[in-house]
């Protein structure tokens, strides 16, 4: 799972899709997830990172993470995986 190539993510968490002109603001959590996806880290690694570094239940994280990924997919921000 990776963010599309034409999408730029700044240090401040501002995400710009140069193909569509859409732009989004990410919060700290979203920024960290996108950063890890762009580093080719697996979902498992992202999950472990958050469970180890944040005070969050596994189920709660799982729900929010899936919501976030669905949102990225719906907004057409993820590379299609063949």
């Amino acid at each position, binding site marked *: 799972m990776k963010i599309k190539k034409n999408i*730029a993510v700044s240090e401040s968490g501002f995400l*710009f899709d140069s193909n569509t*002109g859409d732009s989004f603001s990410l919060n700290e959590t979203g920024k960290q997830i996108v950063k890890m996806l762009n580093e080719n880290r697996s979902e498992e690694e992202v999950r472990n990172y958050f469970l180890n570094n944040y005070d969050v239940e596994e189920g709660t994280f799982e729900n929010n993470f899936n919501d976030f990924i669905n949102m990225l997919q719906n907004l057409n921000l993820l590379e299609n995986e063949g």
Partner: protein
Amino acid sequence: MKDKPKYTIAVTGLNNTDNPGPGVPVIRALREAKSFDVRIIGIVYENLEPGIYIENIADKIYQIPYPSTGSDNLLKRIEYIHLKENINILIPNFDAELFTFMKAEEKLKSMGIATFLPTIKQFEERHKSVLPEYGKKYGLDIPESKNITNLVEINKLHNEFVFPVLVKGKYYDAYLAYNAAQVVEHFNKISAKWGVPIIIQQFVKGTEVNVVALGDGKGNTIGAVPMRKQYITDKGKAWGGITLSDQKLLDITHDLIKKTKWKGGMELEIIKTHDNKYYIIEINPRIPAWVYLAVGAGQNLPEALVKLALGEDVIPFKNYDAGKMFIRYSYDIIGDISQFEKLSITGEL
């Protein structure tokens, strides 16, 4: 270092109101040209076109009669201006005047005035009223549309279209209608202003994206920059926009220019649907008012157009910056009644 040549360029469309003409942004681009200097002759129809009063836009202003008063009148006036100013290039920017200037291309040339306009055929075949045929001929997706000339035809529209539909004038104006009653309302409003036919176009849901492009008349695209409107006025005009890197938009543009051998500036108005289909809803045969965004993104298309008009070889632009934005604003200029008086009485300023 070799001195840059200086050209006298006449430009129309100084009406940068909330429905802006391209004149002022074209002039700004020409003043920033790297390969030549300019003296700008602003050509206006109305004596309150804002570009007349903005500093460092036109060096001299001349008023001309509307093309509807007859092309002879208009050309005589251009001849008079040319005698005084020795115009090298004329850049008309209004849809409604283009036909007159295209017809007069040879005459202008014989006077020593260069233009770089589409051919009559190129101009005629992309009219809104014949756009579906154009789409078939050149392999473009165009929303279903139909020309209507009377109110009776409106009652049958539900057999061919799914509401909402766009109701469009031949040259200007477009309104969305959700039922036949609204079509009647818009039909009456538009036909009173622009006559018939009125074009009924299937509304396509999606994002409106535009491309400004320049064709060399031999099938080559000299430059092309796509933009998405970010802020749209109630007249549907872009008040803010951002350049895109969308390769498909560039491919459509290059392909169209290649097939039609388009000559001059053009603007493609396209709806990109959520399933990534691109429907062309209009083709404007001139530089659009947002052309300065292309200049800001690295393609000075008006400069290239001038060079093409003068018969120079122009190397096509290869790149532009995606993510460049333009934001329009309104600004009050203080003029003096003496300027208005001079233009009103003498037709010059």
